[in-house]
């Protein structure tokens, strides 16, 4: 989602306290709704803290495992000095669903489902499975002979009435 990319771009400036107040509001609102960005920010903050402690050199990307190893291993337990983002409310079902559904893959899948459903329900000529006839003649009573033609795809069925006269051909 675009908002995520923007948020992640703004993270460094946010941690440096350089983000404008109105941008901070939008930024934090997104964080409340987006666990992914929240986690990302936590990682960045953790990286900074470790850097301050001199545990990792600058510019080395860290995985969460690295951080956990670093924290659980050599670093003496210490109260984190960095600021803590106040989470006014824990994310509700809607925020969780929203952050899930607005990621590209689920969103596209969802959209495709809707399109498929729409097509199957609104196409005037539904797609027939192979061999399924479009028309079934259940019975015929006729004073004349009839010939029945069915088109290749069984879209059209023709009942042709043949006159019972001298010019009638056997049917």
């Amino acid at each position: 989602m675009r908002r995520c990319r923007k948020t992640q771009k703004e993270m460094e400036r946010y941690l440096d306290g350089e983000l404008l107040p109105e941008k901070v509001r939008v930024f934090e609102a997104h964080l409340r709704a987006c666990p992914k960005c929240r986690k990302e920010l936590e990682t960045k903050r953790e990286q900074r803290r470790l850097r301050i402690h001199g545990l990792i050199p600058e510019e080395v990307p860290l995985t969460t495992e690295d951080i956990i190893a670093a924290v659980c291993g050599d670093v003496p337990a210490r109260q984190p000095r960095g600021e803590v983002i106040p989470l006014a409310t824990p994310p509700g079902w809607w925020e969780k669903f929203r952050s899930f559904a607005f990621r590209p893959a689920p969103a596209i899948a969802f959209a495709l489902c809707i399109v498929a459903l729409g097509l199957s329900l609104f196409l005037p000529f539904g797609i027939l499975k192979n061999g399924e006839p479009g028309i079934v003649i259940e019975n015929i009573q006729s004073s004349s002979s009839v010939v029945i033609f069915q088109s290749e795809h069984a879209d059209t069925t023709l009942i042709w009435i043949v006159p019972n006269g001298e010019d009638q051909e056997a049917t």
Partner: protein
Amino acid sequence: MPRFHTAKFTFVFLGVILFSFFMPGKGKAASVQLEWRIILASHRKGTVDPRLRDIYRDLGAVFNYNSYKILDMNRVQLSKNQSVSIPLDRNRVCVIKVTNTTPKWVNVQIQINRKGRSVFGTAARLRNGRSLLIGGPSTRNKALIFSLRSFW
């Protein structure tokens, strides 16, 4: 968080649409729309009515008529057990009755009466949009073809 309201609304709206898709009985047409066409096929040089696009190829596969003209065409909304009478020519009348509707099919009974006497009758099941044609007999290089389609 007012920013989320549009998205929230969209999801609720989509939910309602989806629900209506899966509502039991959806597609179980309470009434169906029947379209009939009375077609004059002849060997005379002529054209094919563009409104016959859907069946022209099938007609061409069976007949060698040159011209297909629509003499009359109409649509009517019918519920189960309702019927409609359509005059075919001076002597013949076609009576169509809807005998049943299911989500997949519509059952119709077609009766052709000539001077009050039944000369032809059939019961058929049609799928949405498929054409049932009843034609003949041909007289003097001409033939009348009756076409029936249902929509719901």
